[in-house]
């Protein structure tokens, strides 16, 4: 791992290097032990005539597991420390270095904010990812979110996930007008604009601070075919049509009725024959469902479990889509192979078409 240069403070950088190291240890050392323990407990249960078919069955197996308690503790508290340590946590450290923040945001960029936009109640009710003040709470929130995202995909190279997402999009065709919903700080939006240089790309999100960072980065990178606008994906207020609508990691932050509304808005905004690709998390494996439901609780993402339980294919069809496909997505080569022993998100691309 190259030395971090997130901050001017070497101490703060060293602290976040440690956080990433611990997070990686949790994912590649502790998690495989937990999986082994699961297999042992499942075998013992089978010998006693108990079947393990649901995430609730798995929860019962782990109800007295010390290893699982440590697994949970580290997942919850390494994240908490990353954001909220009084010493070098992201929120405090970024506030301590206003010149760094000002430098990142000074480029400005093509951004249309909506001062009247009120963030949805379900969004404001939780500090998602344990981010104090949430992803929209203050001017630094985009920078805090971006820095935090560095340590969520152990073993995956920086930008690899988003580059592979672009590869997936390319396989679905060439696109001239692209909308990226819930675009955050533009992690996928800017690569989309790079990948389709003749396309017009628009990113929308409810968080002004995230959009400000996205727009500044796009301008600094001299990406001219992208713009950003503050809007709620459920009802964007847009009156233009797109031939591709995407999102990455948006749906699991929405309650079921908001997922339905977002799919309806996706369909409304697509031109006939247009394609929708939402990248999120799906799993049919009860062990992984148990792990992800717990992740949602520990990481303040209360709608993750409802999304995984939701019949998404039916929701898409109800919203008027056809050719709905839900495909596993590998954030790095081989990551979605069942033999991969490491912790990861069970990514899935939900690809659908609006009837021509």
């Amino acid at each position, binding site marked *: 791992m190259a030395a971090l240069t997130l901050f001017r403070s070497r*101490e703060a950088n060293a602290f976040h290097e440690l*956080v990433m190291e611990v997070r990686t240890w949790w994912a590649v050392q502790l998690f495989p032990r937990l999986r082994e323990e699961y297999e042992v407990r499942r075998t013992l249960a089978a010998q006693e005539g108990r079947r393990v078919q649901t995430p609730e069955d798995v929860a019962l197996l782990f109800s007295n597991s010390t290893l699982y308690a*440590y697994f949970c503790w580290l997942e919850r508290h390494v994240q908490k420390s990353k954001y909220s340590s009084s*010493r070098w946590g992201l929120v405090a450290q970024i506030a301590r270095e206003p010149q760094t923040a000002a430098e990142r945001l000074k480029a400005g960029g093509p951004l249309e904010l909506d001062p009247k936009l009120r963030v949805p109640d379900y969004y404001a009710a939780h500090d998602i990812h344990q981010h104090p003040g949430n992803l929209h709470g203050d001017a630094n929130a985009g920078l805090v979110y971006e820095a935090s995202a560095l340590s969520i995909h152990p073993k995956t190279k920086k930008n690899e996930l988003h580059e592979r997402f672009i590869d997936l999009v390319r396989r679905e065709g060439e696109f001239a007008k692209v909308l990226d919903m819930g675009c955050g700080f533009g992690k996928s939006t800017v690569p989309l604009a790079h990948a389709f240089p003749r396309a017009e790309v628009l990113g929308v999100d409810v968080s002004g601070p995230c959009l400000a960072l996205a727009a500044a980065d796009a301008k600094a990178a001299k990406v001219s075919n992208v713009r950003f606008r503050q809007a709620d994906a459920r009802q964007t207020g847009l009156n233009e049509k797109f031939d591709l609508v995407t999102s990455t990691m948006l749906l699991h932050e929405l309650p079921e009725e908001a997922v339905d509304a977002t799919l309806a808005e996706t369909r409304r905004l697509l031109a006939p024959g247009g394609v929708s690709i939402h990248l999120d998390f799906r799993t049919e494996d009860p062990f992984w469902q148990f792990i992800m439901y717990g992740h949602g609780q520990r990481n303040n993402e209360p709608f993750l479990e409802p999304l995984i339980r939701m019949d998404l294919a039916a929701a898409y069809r109800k919203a008027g889509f056809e050719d709905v496909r839900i495909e596993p997505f590998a954030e790095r080569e081989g990551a979605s192979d069942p033999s991969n022993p490491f912790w990861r998100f069970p990514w899935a691309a939900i690809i659908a078409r609006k009837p021509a």
Partner: protein
Amino acid sequence: MKSTDPVVGPQAEQIFFADPAIDRLIGVVFALTAEVHVMRDRLSLLEDALQRNGIDVAALASAVPDGALEARIATDRTALVQHVLEGLSGRLASKS
């Protein structure tokens, strides 16, 4: 023995062990680990710089801090104690 402490306020942190004292204690261990790592990182940088500038690093073992350096060490000690022990509070730092 399971703790019978009342939950103080609406911001009670999630508990993963039968005794919440364990949850809090690991927080202390984690913070200490971070402190040690950051200090060792700093020490390595410092010793490398000193050695490259002809200073005998081994002689630092018997040095006595005074004046501004002594005050700086005291301030750092206060922040270290706050960091290491804040995990004991059992309180959330975010809304949920």
